[in-house]
């Protein structure tokens, strides 16, 4: 009884090929760290190129898997711990896009700050691996592992600008609050386990399906669901769990803020979809109103508080809260048919929104990173006065990103907002759809404020000084912003292919 003979243990079958997008990222992270530590500094852009290569390879593998899943249907891997479905692949691709764009920006940034080294990139790759695990978890413990892998990497990244005390402060704040929220999440998982007898999402679903309501430990389960939602709402920065966002985004190095706002949120939304839509469809009547309120508060808080900000990074942080509200509107509409065979347009609209948002938010922070020159601190709204005369091309790109965030037609932002509102209206959630659009008018005001400052305000003394040295940037930064702007406009004009792809996000592995 004390020790089982070793020979009877058989490990689960591991689908190496199916997991390859994830493995490529982990392998690249390890390789970068080891090789980077043992070799002298690489030539310019070397680390970034490896990172972009790994992210691209991972995305390509995910696209190949997409084909396989489309043919064979969704399944689970590693003894039901990881789900292998289109939703997982979509989030994988989105996160890889974020890694590639941010890595290019980071190269530019690190060279300006003279901080070049492999650490940033390795951490991005680790964080991305964690994010992919979160978005494809089919087991709550695996989900938690993903959350921690992502979060730990982000804590370090936020504090990675060693010479700026604000960056240290940002890292510490994020760490303290983030670990607190992880504890909520873990406690919630424990309670759900207590109520259902398993952490595996498939088994949780089966249990909830089969057990008569009387047999369930409802109070236990509901408490667990509530705690998990608190934990995840913190990770997606939905109001009222958003208070950390402006401080952390402002303090963190600009490319890292871009990464947190994009990949971090995508992963957390992936996890939220897993927990709410996939695992708990039978409790949707309990959690749906909570999502509704979270969406409402995020929409209002994000847009209204952004209006009074004077720092562009804080402003983008608040606007990202408004975007979270929009995605939550999509989740809310997905809730109406959660668990049904045809789960409606909610999840596809969430996917499209997240991909479009990822690209435009990285572009926005990318411009801020270049504009804030060495020192990474010229991010006040006033320092953007006359930006259009100093850097006309960057100003045009920034205008595109801001208009896209405002949801102006012929940009991906419009398609994204249209999709979410359409999903909400199809499920007859008129009120939240209307509120979302009205807050987007308020949000449009703040994007216009930045645009006006760039194009119409005469530069004052402080911003004239900025026109001097220190705003140089390398081709990597330009490439990243160019790609992001191109994508934003292209999706705005020809969105069919993306909508097609996202339409298949409705079937989940169970």
């Amino acid at each position, binding site marked *: 009884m004390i020790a089982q003979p070793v020979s009877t243990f058989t490990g689960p079958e591991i689908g190496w090929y199916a997991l390859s997008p994830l493995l490529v990222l982990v392998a690249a992270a390890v390789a970068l760290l080891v090789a980077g530590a043992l070799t002298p500094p690489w030539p310019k852009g070397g680390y970034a190129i490896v990172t972009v290569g790994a992210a691209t390879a991972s995305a390509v593998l995910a696209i190949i898997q997409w084909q396989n899943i489309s043919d064979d249907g969704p399944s689970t891997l590693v003894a039901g711990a990881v789900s292998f479905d289109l939703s997982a692949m979509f989030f994988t691709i989105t996160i890889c896009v974020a890694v590639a764009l941010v890595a290019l920006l980071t190269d530019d940034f690190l060279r300006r700050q003279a901080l070049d080294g492999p650490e940033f990139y390795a951490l991005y790759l680790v964080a991305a691996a964690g994010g992919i695990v979160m978005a494809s978890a089919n087991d709550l413990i695996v989900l938690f592992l993903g959350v921690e892998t992502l979060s730990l990497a982000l804590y370090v990244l936020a504090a990675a600008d060693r010479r700026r005390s604000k960056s240290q402060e940002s890292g510490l704040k994020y760490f303290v609050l983030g670990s607190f929220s992880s504890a909520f999440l873990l406690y919630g998982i424990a309670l759900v386990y207590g109520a259902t007898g398993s952490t595996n999402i498939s088994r949780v679903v089966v249990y909830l399906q089969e057990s008569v309501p009387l047999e369930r430990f409802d109070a236990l389960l509901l408490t667990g669901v509530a705690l998990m939602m608190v934990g995840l709402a913190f990770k997606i920065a939905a109001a009222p769990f958003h208070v950390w966002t402006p401080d952390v985004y402002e303090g963190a190095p600009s490319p890292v803020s871009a990464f947190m706002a994009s990949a971090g949120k995508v992963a957390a939304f992936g996890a939220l979809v897993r927990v709410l839509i996939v695992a708990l469809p039978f409790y949707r009547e309990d959690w749906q109103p909570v999502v509704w309120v979270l969406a409402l508060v995020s929409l209002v808080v994000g847009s209204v508080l952004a209006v009074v900000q004077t720092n562009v990074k804080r402003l983008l942080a608040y606007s990202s809260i408004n975007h979270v509200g929009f995605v939550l509107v999509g989740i809310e509409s997905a809730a109406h048919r959660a668990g049904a065979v045809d789960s409606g347009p909610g999840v596809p609209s969430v996917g499209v929104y997240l991909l479009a948002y990822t690209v435009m938010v990285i572009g926005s922070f990318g411009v801020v990173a270049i504009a804030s020159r060495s020192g990474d601190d010229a991010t006040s709204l006033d320092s953007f006065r006359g930006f259009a005369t100093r850097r006309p091309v960057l100003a045009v790109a920034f205008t595109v990103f801001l*208009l896209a965030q405002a949801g102006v*037609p*012929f940009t991906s932002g419009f398609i994204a907002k249209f999709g979410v*509102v359409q999903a909400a209206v199809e499920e007859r959630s008129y009120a939240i759809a209307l509120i979302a*659009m009205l807050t987007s008018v308020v949000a449009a*005001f703040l994007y216009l404020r930045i645009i006006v400052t760039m194009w119409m305000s005469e530069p004052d003394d402080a911003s004239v000084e900025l026109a001097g040295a220190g705003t140089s940037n390398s081709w990597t930064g330009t490439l990243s912003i160019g790609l992001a702007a191109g994508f934003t406009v292209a999706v705005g004009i020809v969105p*069919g292919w993306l*909508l097609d792809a996202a339409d298949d996000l409705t079937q989940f592995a169970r």
Partner: protein
Amino acid sequence: MNEGSFPILTALIATPLAGAVLVMLANARRPEIAKLVGLLTSVATAALSVWLLASFESGAESYQFVSKHPWIEQWGISWHLGVDGISLFLVVLTAVLFPLSLLGADPHHGHKQYLVWMLILEAGVMGSFLSLDLFVFFLFFEVVLVPMYFLIGGWGYEDRVHAALKFFLYTAGGSAFMFVGIIATVYLARDSVGEITFDLVRLSEDADFATSTGRWLFFAFAVAFAVKVPIFPLHTWLPDAHTQAPTAGSVVLAGVMLKLGTYGLLRFGLGLFPEAAYWARPLLLTLGVVGIIYGAMVATMQKDLKRLVAYSSIAHLGFIILGTFAFTSQSMSGSVLQMINHGVSTGALFLLVGWIYERRKTRLIAELRGIQQVAPIFAAGFMVVMLSSIGVPGLNGFVGEYLVLIGSFLTARWWTVVAAAGVILAAVYLLWAYQRVFHGEPDDANRTFKELTLREGMVLLPFIGLIVFCGVYPKPMLDRIEPSIAELIEHVEENTDFVSPEPARAGIDE
């Protein structure tokens, strides 16, 4: 219809857009090239519109020159353009007003950006008038805001940024309602139409809404259009925007952009929700008449010449609303005609006021005196335009107002009685203003008032030509407008218990 022939409607949108791109690429140090390119493309657009006018079959019902291509098939959206008697003259007006205002008003700085925004604006306005797909219409309707915002904010007068913001927030707020309304319309019509489609023609034919649903949807559309028109009490953005906008901006704003609202009410409000429009009739008639009286009274009290013209717009558009919701052939044809007339005469008035400002650097009526003595030709031109705006027989303003009043008298008697007083009030504020500005002995400041230049004369001449031609011989216009109006009235009669009164059906020219 017209399969395989030259896609003239697409060309009407694409030409100014291509012009905008060309201007963008032009050398910034040589604004004359940009000006030439901008002017040539807008003239080319005008030529296209004249060709459209010439090949338009008068007397034919329904849409002509239809071009329809699937665009986003997942959402049932197609690039669907068409023109009928209602939109035909608005398209021509747009195409004619733009080159004239480019010629007639000098932005003084930033020529290149100014031209880019103007041309994008032209493409947007064209697109709004031509689209027969709700999605495409909304795209253009929204996109118009961006260039107008920048034109007011970048090239306007003292308080321009505030005015631009007010304009943007009001209109975007209205559009938020329409955005949700459009999507709701499409989804609620899914059962009766059989599929998801944004096609206006199919929706207005087949869509069948429950009474209360239709009224809510009508309300959502009407709010957006009412802001745009603007209908009292949603008009408060207009005086600011008009007064602060650069001359060309005011011309376009008053000339065509306000018509987006009245056109929208006719095409979408009545076309999609005839029952609800009939139901909401008393309210809209009342607001229209209130607008007539209120606009006229406030205009009388203005000290600023430009603000006076702005308030006169509110009064004139009140007539258009009255005519639209009186639902008789004469009143509605009169409304469409009045849209064109108002565009021509108010556009010309804004140009003239702009020229006064160029000369005297003031728009205050109290500062101006006796201009007739020093600049008799200028005064004569002003007088013709002013008389047309008052509605003196023989000039275009009379035809529209007369038709509106005579048609409305049959179905909305008491409203018409009150509205008729507005005609007298128009004479009061315009003649009084003319008297104060042009009569009397010029003081020292006004003694050097420059006579109309040749270039200004060339710009003014087409306006006066149109004013006289439409006033003397409106038949060709009415021949093209009437069939479409008849069809619209039939559509309303089919869907409500409304019966258009017999004498009003007989047509006008018998």
